[in-house]
């Protein structure tokens, strides 16, 4: 029977520059980080780059980890900082345009995200596209607030502390994100562009 090592053991080994141990940690949490990144970034390639960057930063900062919290809590803090810094850098790279949203055919955008082209998966593709489009209409802070609240289950105070803002701001961002999602995902408010795309797919 194989007994998996605890996070603490793996972190200690990784702190002693054991790359294998760090890769094992990455295998445990990469999906959660990638999920956040894929909802945060509009493009799949950006999401992959950002999640890779998070792991490199975590490896770089690993000697400073003092076991005062769980490894994932510490990693999540690094993730939030990386997301916010990515927002700033992309802001400067795009010359001040914070929201550059455009509809791209999903098959071109995320070819390996979905398993097959069954009707259910096509529906999921469209749903995912709608969710990401709705989130893309928000500011990066609001988007991140929603993801941390809804997907990570963090409290408003925890999010506010991690993002250096007030709990009221976080609440407002989450509420706004849910409003956008409702407007996008409710059956009566489907946009013509989405319908055309779904007909082409089906």
């Amino acid at each position, binding site marked *: 029977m194989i007994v998996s090592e605890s996070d603490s053991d793996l972190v200690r080994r990784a702190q002693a*520059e054991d*790359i294998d141990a*760090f*890769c094992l940690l*990455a*295998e445990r949490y*990469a*999906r959660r980080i*990638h*999920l956040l990144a894929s909802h945060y970034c509009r493009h799949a390639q950006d999401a*992959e780059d950002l999640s*890779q960057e998070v*792991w*490199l930063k975590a*490896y*770089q900062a690993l000697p400073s980890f003092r076991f005062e919290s769980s490894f994932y809590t510490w990693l999540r803090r690094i993730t939030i900082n990386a997301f916010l810094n990515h927002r700033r850098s992309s802001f400067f790279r795009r010359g001040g345009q914070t929201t550059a949203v455009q509809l791209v055919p999903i098959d071109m955008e995320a070819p*390996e*995200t*979905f*398993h097959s082209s069954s009707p259910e998966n096509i529906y*999921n593709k469209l*749903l*995912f596209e709608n*969710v990401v489009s709705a989130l893309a209409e928000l500011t990066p802070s609001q988007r991140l607030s929603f993801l941390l*609240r*809804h*997907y990570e289950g963090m409290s408003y105070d925890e999010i506010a502390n991690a993002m250096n803002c007030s709990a009221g701001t976080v*609440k407002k961002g*989450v*509420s706004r994100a*849910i409003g956008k*999602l*409702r407007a996008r*995902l*409710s059956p009566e408010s489907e946009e013509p562009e989405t319908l055309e795309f779904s007909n082409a797919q089906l």
Partner: protein
Amino acid sequence: MHNCKETRERFTELVLDGDPRAEKLLDQCEECRAEFESLTATLRMTTRLRETVAPTESYWTSYHAQLRSNLEQFHAKAQRLRHAKAQREELKPGLGFVFASLRQPLRLCVKTFLRPVPVPLGVALFAVGLVLALFGIRAPQQPATPPQAPAVVQVPVEVPTVQEKVVTQVVYRDRRRVSKPSKRVINSPTAESTIARSQDTLSGFKPTDEVKLTVIKGGSPNEK
């Protein structure tokens, strides 16, 4: 009393936290219940999406391979930097190393020279030291090297020069006009008196045989 506005403002927290008090609040208003269920359905949809939308295993294989490659590159770079830093430290020992190497000779000097000596010997050593110090002070005062040629320093000196000033002044001299008798004015009445006066002074005058008369018309020099 039920307040729809307040209830709906709390929807987000009630849905996300799964608060059991939600049922009690919603029992009082059918509209609020419908709104709440719509919101719950939206969030349930996104949750389901999170579970169903996941990359394939092949994606994760390449993802972790890429991550390992990045980590190895980073690790190698960090090791190179660390090695270079260690080499720099070996080449440049700090001040601590210098002081540690000087500590033993300093201690030997203190042990050798700071010993109790008899008073006469001490006085004699002090006197010798004083004389040596005096010579040492005087020695630099004597010229050890032959006097060098005085250095020539060129200093610009201002020499006052007499500046002559030539003043040109136009002086007008009062010229007496010599009145010449004009042939033209002979006929005029005033000319008769002039002729009469000149006849008084022309005693002994002998006129010439030829008379040369030049008539000037107008004032222009070209007109004759």
